């Protein structure tokens, strides 16, 4: 009887374990099936490198290059803002801050991670957007830059906490060794600790960027959603994610437009897959 119970429990756990893989495969298959259908009406080249996205004009133009540029520009901007600040913050928490400040900062970072993206987007919309409009004398403050700034806030918690963890797990003996040779604290940090933690820090950055590239709600609210190839960071852009979210509701099921949105999903999936794999490679390098 007891053996039987063990057997049942074991199998149940096995099924739960397999379920997650099963669903991922299912989602992937569905995404592929629906997404690839778009290539009946547009070639993969024209889809990826086409310069205009007019899905409901007649005939529909389904080029996602402006959307790819939009996503990359916003992500790049967010990375440029969040990486230096995030890594510096991690160094401060791991190395410099006194215990009390350290605790307060870590709690603050966790709190930042807990803010829902729609709330960040909303705050950005009422504070950041008007500010950017007036500072740069723009016709609208809904720009790639606004998106980048808000997304930087969303990437920061990931970058800080993982980079801090990487710095913290650098063996104390390196620090002692550097101090014993007469290195100052700062020399120790940038000559020994940062190189020693580099793979963990790269992983932190990649995971932060992974979060940014998949983010939807905040960017949809504050980047202006104009599907044109951006000439600067001070113009409205439309990202891959925002396109799906904004248009899926009104696309006719089974239409070209509908399939194109799924194909965008595939592009996004591949992008974040590559980023996560890179992050994983670096994390494993660190653990080896």
């Amino acid at each position, binding site marked *: 009887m007891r053996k039987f119970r063990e057997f049942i429990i074991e199998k149940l756990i096995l099924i739960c374990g397999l379920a997650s893989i099963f669903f991922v495969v299912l989602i992937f298959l569905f995404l592929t099936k629906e997404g690839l259908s778009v290539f009946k009406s547009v070639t993969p080249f024209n889809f990826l490198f086409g310069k205009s996205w007019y899905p409901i004009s007649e005939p529909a133009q389904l080029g996602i290059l402006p959307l790819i540029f939009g996503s990359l520009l916003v992500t790049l901007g967010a990375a440029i803002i969040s990486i230096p600040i995030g890594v510096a913050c991690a160094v401060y928490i791991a190395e410099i801050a006194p215990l009390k400040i350290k605790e307060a900062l870590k709690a603050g970072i966790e709190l930042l991670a807990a803010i829902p993206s729609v709330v960040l987007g909303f705050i950005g919309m009422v504070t950041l957007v008007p500010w950017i409009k007036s500072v740069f004398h723009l016709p609208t403050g809904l720009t790639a830059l606004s998106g980048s700034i808000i997304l930087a806030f969303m990437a920061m918690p990931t970058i800080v906490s993982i980079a801090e963890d990487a710095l913290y797990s650098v*063996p104390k*003996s390196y620090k002692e060794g*550097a*101090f*014993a040779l*007469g290195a100052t604290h700062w020399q120790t940090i940038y000559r*020994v600790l940062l190189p020693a933690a580099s793979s963990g820090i790269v992983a932190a950055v990649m995971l932060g960027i992974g979060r940014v590239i998949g983010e939807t709600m905040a960017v949809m609210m504050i980047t202006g959603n104009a599907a044109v190839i951006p000439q600067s960071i001070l113009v409205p852009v439309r990202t891959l994610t925002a396109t799906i979210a904004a248009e899926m509701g009104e696309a006719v099921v089974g239409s070209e437009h509908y399939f194109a949105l799924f194909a965008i999903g595939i592009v996004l999936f591949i992008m974040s897959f590559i980023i996560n794999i890179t992050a994983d490679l670096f994390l494993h390098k660190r653990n080896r």
Partner: protein
Amino acid sequence: MADISVNNLNLWYGDFQALINVNVHFTQKQITAIIGPSGCGKSTLLRVFNRMNDLIEGVRTTGEVMIDAENIVSEKTDLVSLRKKVGMVFQRPNPFPLSIYENIVFGQKVHAEGLTKLKLNEVVEDSLKSVFLWDELKDKLNKSAFTLSLEQKQRLCIARLIVVKPEILLMDEPCSTLDPQATSRIEELMRELKNNYTTIIVTHNMQQAARVSDQTGFMLLGELVEFGRTEDIFTKPKDKRTEDYITGRYG
């Protein structure tokens, strides 16, 4: 080169007194061994001399430690120049996760800027020669220091230290992770180096103390029980506790 004079030194970790009224004089060009059972404060004493204890929170010291007429336990001490003068070799070899070359020039880069490549190459060659690693490693200077054997790592750490031109070498059980042959080669190196430095070695290996040192101090529960010439300590100890320890009654 510098002597070290320790006068009425006390040290607390929070409420725990780890060093109790230590008075001792270390002489240049000599190797002094500090022996004693685990937890007797010998490593703590060693770490006073380069202020490594500062890394631990709640450490408090009284008394004075004079090196070149400067009381190095005072608040005003410039730790960078102190640690340049007083170098340390650790129990576990701790090369940085950098190349062999970068490990050695670390000290140079930290203390002097704008050195030419040529000068750095010279430094690397000299220091590796002085720890007898040059012939083994001259063709793989750009390899990671982690590819070396434990003994080579420890030699590299000594080479890295010599570059900074210290006057005092502190060695905290430098052979405890090494096999007997490697140990004897490192001891050989200590003897080679001793004429240029004031060397203090902490060890719980009494035979090692007897082999390499000129003077020996025995510590127990934070006190320096006895200090004198190594032969005297090992053949005719004055204190009963020293005798018990070296004859193996405890420890």
